[in-house]
C-alpha cells in the first residue's frame, strides 16, 4: 500500500513541476470531502495541488426557498414532515425543522419507504417527504411515488429537491472565471448514472473526470490519475472504482427515475438557476407533488446575510475566508448549510482544521 501511495505522490509531484502552476481539482461529493479531511489527505499533497470542495453535498446546495417552503409546511397542523436527518438543522425563515418540531410533526426517516409507511400509519395527516439528494437518492423516491400511486395512498406527497450532478459541473466550467482544472467525480452517484455520464465534461470542456471510491488510497490514486492526465495535456474519462461503478450505471434505477421524474430548470444555492438540473414529478404523478397539493411556490430568496456558502460551493473561496466562520458560524450553532451538514466544506474545515 505504501508503495502505491509513494507512486501516486511521485506522479502528483511531477505534474506540479511540469505545469509550473497551481493545480485545482474539485471534488463534487460531500462524502469525498469528509474522507479527504478525515484522512488528512490534503496535508500529503504537493503544495501546488489544491482541492476545491464543490457542490457535492445535497443539503448544502438546496436553495433557501426550498427550506422556507418545508418550514411553512411544518407549521401546518394537517402535515407530517418526513425528512432525512441531514436536513433537520438547516436554518430558514423563523427557525429550522429541529426548532419547529414542538408539535412533533417532524419525523426523521432513513428511507423513502419509511416516509410512505408514515403515511399509511397516519391516514388523518398528509405526509410530506422532503426528497433531497442527487442521483444516488432520487431512485428511492421514485420507487415510493410509484408505490403510492399503485396503492392509492393519497395522503402522501413529496417536495422534490432532487438534483443532478452533471448539469452543476457543466454550469461551473461554463463560467468565464472558473479555476477548475479537473473533477474528482462522486463514487456512489456514479453507481447509478455510470461513469459515461461525465463524458460531456471531458469532451466539451476538456476537463479530466475521474471517478473514485471513498477509501483514502483510491482518492489519492484518483488525484494522481488526474495529475497524470493534466501533465500530459490530456482530458480523459476514467474510473478508479471498478468494483461498483460501470460505464452505464444501474439502468433499472435510471429507468424508474425517468418514469417518475423529468428534468427541470432549478435553483442551487450559490450557483443560481441551472438548466435541466433538477428533477420534478412527471404529470402522471403530479398529484404527489407537495407544491401543487398545497398550492405553494418556491420563491428564490436571499441567503442568510453575511453567509458565503455560495462562494464556498463554487470553489471561489475557502471557508476561513468567510467572516462568520468559527465566529458566528460553528457546528454547534450553524448559520449556513455548509456548516450544518456533516458533509459540508465548512463543517469539515471546522471539525478537522486547516491542514495547510
Amino acid at each position, binding site marked *: 500500500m505504501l508503495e502505491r501511495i509513494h507512486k501516486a505522490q511521485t506522479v502528483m509531484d511531477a505534474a506540479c513541476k511540469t505545469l509550473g502552476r497551481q493545480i485545482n481539482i474539485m471534488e463534487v461529493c460531500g462524502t469525498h470531502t469528509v474522507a479527504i479531511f478525515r484522512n488528512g489527505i490534503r496535508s500529503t499533497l504537493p503544495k501546488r495541488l489544491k482541492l476545491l470542495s464543490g457542490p457535492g453535498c445535497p443539503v448544502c446546495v438546496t436553495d433557501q426557498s426550498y427550506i422556507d417552503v418545508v418550514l411553512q409546511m411544518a407549521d401546518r397542523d394537517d402535515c407530517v414532515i418526513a425528512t*432525512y436527518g441531514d436536513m433537520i438543522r438547516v436554518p430558514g425563515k423563523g427557525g429550522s425543522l429541529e426548532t419547529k418540531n414542538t408539535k412533533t410533526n417532524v419525523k426523521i426517516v432513513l428511507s423513502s419507504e419509511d416516509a410512505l409507511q408514515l403515511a399509511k400509519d397516519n391516514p388523518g395527516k398528509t405526509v410530506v417527504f422532503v426528497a433531497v*439528494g442527487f442521483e444516488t*437518492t432520487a431512485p*428511492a423516491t421514485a420507487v415510493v411515488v410509484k408505490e403510492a400511486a399503485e396503492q392509492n395512498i393519497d395522503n402522501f406527497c413529496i417536495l422534490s429537491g432532487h438534483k443532478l450532478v452533471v448539469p452543476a459541473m457543466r454550469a461551473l466550467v461554463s463560467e468565464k472565471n472558473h479555476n477548475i482544472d479537473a473533477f474528482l467525480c462522486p463514487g456512489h*452517484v456514479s*453507481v447509478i448514472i455510470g461513469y459515461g455520464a461525465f463524458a460531456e465534461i471531458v469532451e466539451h470542456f476538456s476537463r479530466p473526470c475521474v471517478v473514485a471510491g471513498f477509501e483514502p488510497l483510491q482518492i489519492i490514486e484518483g488525484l494522481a490519475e488526474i495529475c497524470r492526465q493534466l501533465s500530459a495535456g490530456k482530458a480523459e474519462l476514467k474510473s478508479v472504482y471498478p468494483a461498483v461503478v460501470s460505464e452505464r450505471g444501474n439502468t*433499472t434505477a435510471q429507468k424508474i427515475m425517468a418514469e417518475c421524474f423529468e428534468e427541470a430548470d432549478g435553483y442551487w444555492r450559490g450557483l443560481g438557476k441551472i438548466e435541466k438540473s433538477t428533477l420534478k414529478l412527471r404529470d402522471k404523478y403530479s398529484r404527489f407533488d407537495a407544491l401543487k397539493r398545497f398550492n405553494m411556490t418556491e420563491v428564490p430568496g436571499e441567503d442568510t446575510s453575511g453567509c458565503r456558502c455560495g462562494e464556498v460551493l463554487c470553489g471561489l473561496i475557502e471557508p476561513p475566508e468567510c467572516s462568520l466562520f468559527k465566529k458566528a458560524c460553528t457546528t454547534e450553532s450553524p448559520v449556513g448549510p455548509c456548516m450544518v451538514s456533516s458533509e459540508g466544506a465548512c463543517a469539515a474545515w471546522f471539525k478537522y482544521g486547516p491542514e495547510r
Partner: protein
Amino acid sequence: MCLAIPARIVELEKDNAVVDAMGNRWRAKTTLLPEAKLGDLVLIHAGFAISLVDEEEAKETWQLLAEIADFDQTKNKLSG
C-alpha cells in the same frame, strides 16, 4: 449523504430483504437491483440496494467504517 454501505442479503422475499453488515441487520428493498439474490453482497443507500459488490471491496469499506467509529469515539473521549 450519497454514501452507500455494503451489506449481505440474509433474507429475501420478492423485493423485501433483510441485510447484514458487521452484525447489524436492517430491512432494505431490492427494487432497484432485481438481479440481487439471497446471500449476495450489495451496496445499500437510503434503504435500497443499488449495486452488487465483491467481498474484498465490502471488507475494505467495513474496515474503514469501523476505523471511523473508533476515531469518532476516541475524539469524543478526548474532547469530552
